[in-house]
């Protein structure tokens, strides 16, 4: 290095500054700058199923959608409310079992079982997690680790609801297009809805809870109630994924409480960038096909997710999406000090 020191200076692009204000629609350049990333995302996701070479890869796309949803929900809860959920599998499992039990006992179609499982499962999971919500710190993370493992143990021991075999021959979706577009549409809806939500006053309260809960409490806001609402949103998304999976496979069983549903979304979120909400989607788009390619090596997959996760935390904590956004919005150049 020598005596000459350099630093990287970053400046916002002119077009970014303009589009934040009133001039956003002053010309095609500004409009394109604003709309292009969003349009590319939406169209990209909608076209993706059409260009997939085979049915197999369309199925992969379905599971990618599931992991993307779980990752977006994890990101919402971790970054905006400050609750780290290490057991996303609790949500998928509960959703899958509700939808599976409804379907096998009453023969309802997925069009009914999925919404019921989403709302009912969200409610159940929120109630299960309610005791640790008035506390700050690591309690939430600890309790969420325990639940999926304990539930698997209880279901195995009691041998109810199919025991280790699971419940099979459930109602499935009519065709592949419904399957793939349902989940991708849901990803887009959840993504944009949550992004809107966290920028409203509601999101401000949630972020306040994360940063300084005493201040929020001093403003006369019930912190626990808000946390419970946020957990409900996350749990409902997770339960939707579970119910969707049980309808996709026509089967629900203990493997829906498996570690994959807890770890992969976390890895995808850390890889994509905490707090961006789009980042987790990007992470899931990279990790899920990767895990399909690596299917042959079995459990080593989970090791690989964890290594990816650790290396991103250690070497690139901001994640991919924050990096991309910086490149999009700012100039960078080296400057002598």
């Amino acid at each position, binding site marked *: 290095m020598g005596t000459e020191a350099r630093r990287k200076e970053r400046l916002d692009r002119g077009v970014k500054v303009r589009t934040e204000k009133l001039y956003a629609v002053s010309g095609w350049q500004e409009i394109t700058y604003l709309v292009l990333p969003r349009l590319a995302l939406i169209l990209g996701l909608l076209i993706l199923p059409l260009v997939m070479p085979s049915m197999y890869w369309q199925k992969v796309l379905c599971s990618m959608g599931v992991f993307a949803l779980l990752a977006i929900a994890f990101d919402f809860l*971790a*970054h905006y409310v*400050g609750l*780290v959920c*290490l057991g996303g599998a609790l949500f998928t499992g509960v959703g899958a079992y509700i939808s599976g039990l409804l379907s096998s006992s009453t023969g309802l179609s997925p069009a009914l079982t999925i919404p019921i499982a989403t709302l009912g499962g969200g409610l159940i999971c929120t109630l299960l997690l309610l*005791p*640790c919500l*008035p*506390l*700050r*710190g*690591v*309690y939430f*993370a*600890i*309790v969420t*680790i*325990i*639940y999926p*493992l*304990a539930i698997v*143990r*209880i279901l195995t*021991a*009691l041998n109810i609801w199919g025991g280790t075999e699971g419940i099979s021959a459930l109602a499935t979706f009519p065709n592949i297009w419904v399957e793939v577009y349902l989940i991708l549409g849901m990803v887009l809806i959840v993504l944009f809805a949550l992004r809107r939500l966290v920028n409203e006053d509601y999101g401000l309260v949630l972020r306040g*809870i994360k940063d300084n*809960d*005493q201040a929020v*409490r001093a403003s006369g806001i019930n*912190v*626990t109630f808000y946390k419970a609402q946020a957990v409900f949103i996350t749990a409902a998304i997770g339960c939707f994924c579970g119910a969707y999976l049980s309808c996709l496979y026509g089967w629900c069983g203990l493997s829906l409480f498996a*570690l994959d549903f807890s*770890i992969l979304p*976390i*890895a995808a979120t*850390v890889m994509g960038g*905490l707090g961006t909400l789009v980042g987790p989607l990007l992470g899931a788009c990279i990790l899920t096909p990767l895990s399909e390619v690596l299917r042959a090596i*079995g*459990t*080593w997959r*989970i*090791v690989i*997710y*964890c*290594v990816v*996760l*650790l290396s991103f*935390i*250690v070497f690139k*904590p901001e994640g991919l999406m924050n990096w991309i956004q910086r490149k999009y919005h700012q100039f960078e150049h080296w400057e002598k000090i």
Partner: protein
Amino acid sequence: MEVFIYGLARGSTLALMAVGFSFAYGVSRLPNFAHGAFYILAGFATWVFAQSLGLNYVLSIAISLVLLAAIGAAMYRFILIRVRGMEVSEIIASYALGVAILEALRCKFVGTGFSTPVFIEGTIKVAGVPIDLQRVVIIAGGVVVIGLIWAFTHYTRLGLSLRGIAQDERAALMLGIDSDRAATIALAIGSALAALAAVIILPVGSITVNEGYDVLISALAVCIIGGLGSWTGTILAAFILGFAGTLTATYIGTMWESVVVVAAIILVLLLKPSGLFGRQKEFEERV
């Protein structure tokens, strides 16, 4: 009487499992979610040294203790130090490391039948109840370990400085205690304690990867119930859970044990969130 003795053994087991986690968390406020993985890793390391490499049993135990201490210190030095203070990342990073270790072990050691030999063969009868000597070793080991930790934190310079960090980090920093060094030592000791628990407890059963998750859960449950970072609480909670588990297993059924753990956690969180002995931190932890 039977319940009492088995409860005592199980309580010591839980106390041994939890004491490492509690130690690391108490000193550095770092939740080591890789605790269960370290426990199982120590078991397999001892097995490899003793069975595959044919080393002396005592020597291989010593090597794996040192190895795990080094891994714990390395985890802090290379991973956790970068995310210290960012709670979300601390939890994610340590849990990811734990899962990586456990799942890698699952691929490497397929099947069952991995077990380390017991220290002393045979059983004795205590008040008419037969109990194998290894369980007596566990009870004794629990008492000795807890006594040693107590002596270490009360009578050595290093232990006192660790307690200083745990009580008031700023004041300790002003008195020249290096917080990073303390955290490294705390994690090294915590991991070595996990390894020690493993070598004492594992001869009773066999070494399986799923045990790692169970140990993590038990340790976390004990720490929550006793109050995170509290010594007395940890030990008391271990025996409460131990007796509760034994009672459930004897009178209701083995499968309800995990229900008891979950129910105990939820009950404690609802009634006394900072645990049985976490009194002075109640305000900090409750919103």
